[in-house]
């Protein structure tokens, strides 16, 4: 099974590669990376983590970045940013919407918008591991998962590692998500097949082979495409 970690903040490529290989990953999305690469059989996926303070700032940054990288992540935490990210289909993943607050950071409006725009809400392993108050952050995430389940919004679990020792094997992350209320089969798929599809669709869009989520552009057209 191909496994993907869609959010890693380590900057040294060798460290990521070594750990990813030991943990059986086939792809890792590295934050602030310019272009896609395949090294030692492991895909390093280009992605950007947008930090914004307001809706306007987020929109401006999205405009600048969307046509350059495969994966666009938004650093959440502020309700205004969370809501704006959920309502924008250019965003792929909204990272840790619960960070630095006392509530889950999203509500039914955000969840419904996230479902419509296909924005995945992230459970960030690093924030759990480094949290000074783990019970609080776990209960926030549990509430977030509950809301997402109700409105069918996509959930994804990533390591969000700031150093290679914060990375974990994909199946273990799925187990953690399962204890927080995510369906285990869904958690496993979101780390493998769903992630793979998402990357494939995004690459097609970048190449101009695809318009929107449904239309695929084909060359020739003699056989009716």
């Amino acid at each position, binding site marked *: 099974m191909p496994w993907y970690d869609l959010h890693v903040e380590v900057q040294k490529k060798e460290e990521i590669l070594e750990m990813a290989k030991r943990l059986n990953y086939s792809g890792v999305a590295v934050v602030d990376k310019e272009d896609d690469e395949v090294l030692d059989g492991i895909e390093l996926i280009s992605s950007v983590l947008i930090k914004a303070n307001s809706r306007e700032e987020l929109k401006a940054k999205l405009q600048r970045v969307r046509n350059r990288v495969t994966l666009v992540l938004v650093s959440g935490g502020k309700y205004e940013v969370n809501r704006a990210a959920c309502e924008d289909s250019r965003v792929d993943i909204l990272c840790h919407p619960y960070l630095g607050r006392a509530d889950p950071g999203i509500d039914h409006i955000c969840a419904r918008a996230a479902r419509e725009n296909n924005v995945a809400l992230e459970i960030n*392993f690093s924030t759990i*591991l480094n949290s000074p108050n783990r019970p609080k952050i776990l209960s926030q995430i549990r509430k977030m998962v509950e809301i997402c389940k109700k409105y069918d919004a996509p959930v994804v679990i990533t390591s969000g590692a700031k150093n290679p020792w914060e990375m974990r094997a994909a*199946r*273990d992350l799925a*187990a953690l998500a399962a*204890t927080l209320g995510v369906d285990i089969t869904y958690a496993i798929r979101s780390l493998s097949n769903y992630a793979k599809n998402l990357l494939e669709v995004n690459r097609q869009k970048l190449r101009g082979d695809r318009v929107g989520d449904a239309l695929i552009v084909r060359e020739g057209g003699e056989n009716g495409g």
Partner: protein
Amino acid sequence: MEDRPKLLPPSMREKERYIVFEVISEGNFSYDELSRSIWFTALTFLGELGVSSCGIKLIRNLWDERSKRGVIRCFHNKIEEVRAALTMIRKIGNANVLIHVLGVTGTIKSARRKFLGHYYLSNFGGENEG
């Protein structure tokens, strides 16, 4: 009369699974430190109540010092909880570590055969060598 209860009927026994894990580390540590760390993390993450219903047991004589692989027994309906607790381990002594679960098996024998590189005579001559 022998001073212990009779072996329970199979339907009343606990159904157990064996989690085989590998420790990835940058420094050295002893088995005692590892076991203390696993118990401590399990207790902080799952709590006394949670651990009591997981039936966790570290199997000491299956710890392989060379390949840093070991086995934890737990009840079959608590596997995800135990795996989640294992992800929370970040340090043993002063060494950075992470625990990578290799797989879950139903018997110690298959855990040995699949993950610990033990060979049985019955493996030879059949199709499934190794």
